[in-house]
Each structure stands twice: as C-alpha cells, then as structure tokens.
C-alpha cells in the first residue's frame, strides 16, 4: 500500500496546507481561494482515529488539486456527496488510481484476493475497491479480472 505519510508529503510538495478541524458533518475540504496564497485542505478531527478513511478523504482532496485548474475551487465531501458532481468524480477517480495502482491491483486479483483482502491490502474503504473495479470495467482486456471482483464483492458485502 501507499504509505499514508506519502500523501502528506505530496501535499507538502505541492505547497498545500493541511488544517485539522473540528468538523462533524464534512470530512474533507479542498479550497484554493483567489485571496489566499496557497491551497488548503481541511480534514476532520474525526479522521484521526480512522486511518483507512483518512487516506481516502485526503487522496480525494488531493485529487481536486490535481484535476481542477484555477482558483475558486471549493469542494467538500460528506459521505453522501462523495460521487455527486463532475468535479467529485474526477477527484475520486484520481484518488482511486493513486491509492490503488492498476498493475498491483491486478496482481492481487490473480493471487485470488477477495474484496475485503484488497481493502486491507490497499488500506482503503470498500467503496474505493468497487470504484476501481468500475473504472477497470471500461478496459475490455480486463473483463475477466472484473468479473472475479464482482463475484467476490457479492460474497463479501
């Protein structure tokens, strides 16, 4: 798995400030306001004790940084709106590809890992494994691998 500290390093390298906030209805926010000298990601304090979720949220917010251009970008995540808009979709796709590289993912499938094992291996939320599977669905050459994931998904969840 990609170490969690790598995500922080990436933010740091990109000049993004991270702010931990006492938020209970939103898990992460990415904002690049025209009046601010650097982009800022807010993370909810509730994520301190949920590393798996933290990785997904932080990667998603980083995704906003890499997939949207210009200022004025403000994006917020709640579990209900994670895939809501076009921007959210792009950011999630980016995050999924960062946390779950295709080659490694397919290797795991070939080793016969089930969905919950994949979740642990990449240390992400199940939603991300499903999202990855959906993304790979668009690759005709990977059809067999996908069918396998779908099966294990049905069994495990």
């Amino acid at each position, binding site marked *: 798995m990609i170490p969690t500290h790598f995500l922080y390093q990436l933010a740091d390298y990109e000049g993004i*400030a991270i*702010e931990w*906030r006492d*938020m*209970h*209805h*939103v898990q992460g*926010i990415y*904002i690049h*306001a*025209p*009046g*601010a*000298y*650097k982009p*800022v990601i*807010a993370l909810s304090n509730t994520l301190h004790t949920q590393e798996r979720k933290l990785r997904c949220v932080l990667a998603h917010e980083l995704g906003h940084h890499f997939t949207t251009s210009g*200022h*004025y*970008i*403000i*994006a*917020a995540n*709640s579990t*209900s*709106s994670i895939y*809501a*808009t076009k*921007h*959210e979709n792009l950011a999630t796709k980016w995050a999924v590809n960062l946390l779950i590289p295709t080659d490694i993912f397919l290797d795991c499938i070939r080793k016969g890992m089930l969905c919950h094992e994949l979740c642990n291996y990449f240390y992400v939320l199940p939603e991300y494994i499903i999202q990855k599977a959906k993304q790979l669905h668009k690759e005709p050459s990977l059809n067999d691998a996908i069918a396998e994931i779908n099966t294990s998904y049905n069994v495990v969840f």
Partner: protein
Amino acid sequence: MVNPGTRIRELREKREMSQLELARQLGINNSVLSRIESGKRDVEDYLLVKFADFFRVSTDYLLYQTNDPTPTSSADLPETVAPYLADGLRELTPEARKEVMNFIEYVKVKYAKKDGDDKK
C-alpha cells in the same frame, strides 16, 4: 408579467441538470417543473423561494426585476463561493455547509495574500 420559467430553465441548463434531477433536488414533481419552465403554470411564492435558494439567486432575478442574480439575503457568503455553493455544495446538509463556510472564512483570514506576495 414576465415568466420566471425561462430564468429557471436558463439556470438549470447552465448547471447541466435535467428537469428530473432538479425536480428531485427540490422535492417537486417533474411535470410541475416542466409546466413552470414552459410558462404553463404560475410559480407559487414558496416555490419561487425554493428555486432562488437552490440557484443562489434573488427572487427578483427570477422575476426579471433585476439582471443581477446576487441574492441580498446571502450577503454573508463570499462572492467567490456563491457559484460553487450551487454546484459542489448543493448536496450538503445545512450543518455541513456551515462547517464549510466557517472554514472558508478561516482560510480567508489565516492564508490571506499580502501585498506584493504573489507566491510564497
């Protein structure tokens, strides 16, 4: 009286939403929205307010009393944020929105660009 339906359609199309999507978001029937947009049905006051809130415009704008969409009631919203409230934040609950707005205010103060300090 000019028909607010045209404005509503404009705003909806600008956001690339279907009638069905918008109707669902506002909790009204799809056919009601369709009739409003085509001017076959008058818009009740409470609905007008719903539309205005959703699109972050003033009701005056919907009624063609002004060409400035900025709602007066949301003067507390930073201008730069308003368009994104309609898009990215529209699905958030009021509590979540409040947390986001608080954070925006916080960033505006803590990370404010100083003069002659374009990049830091």
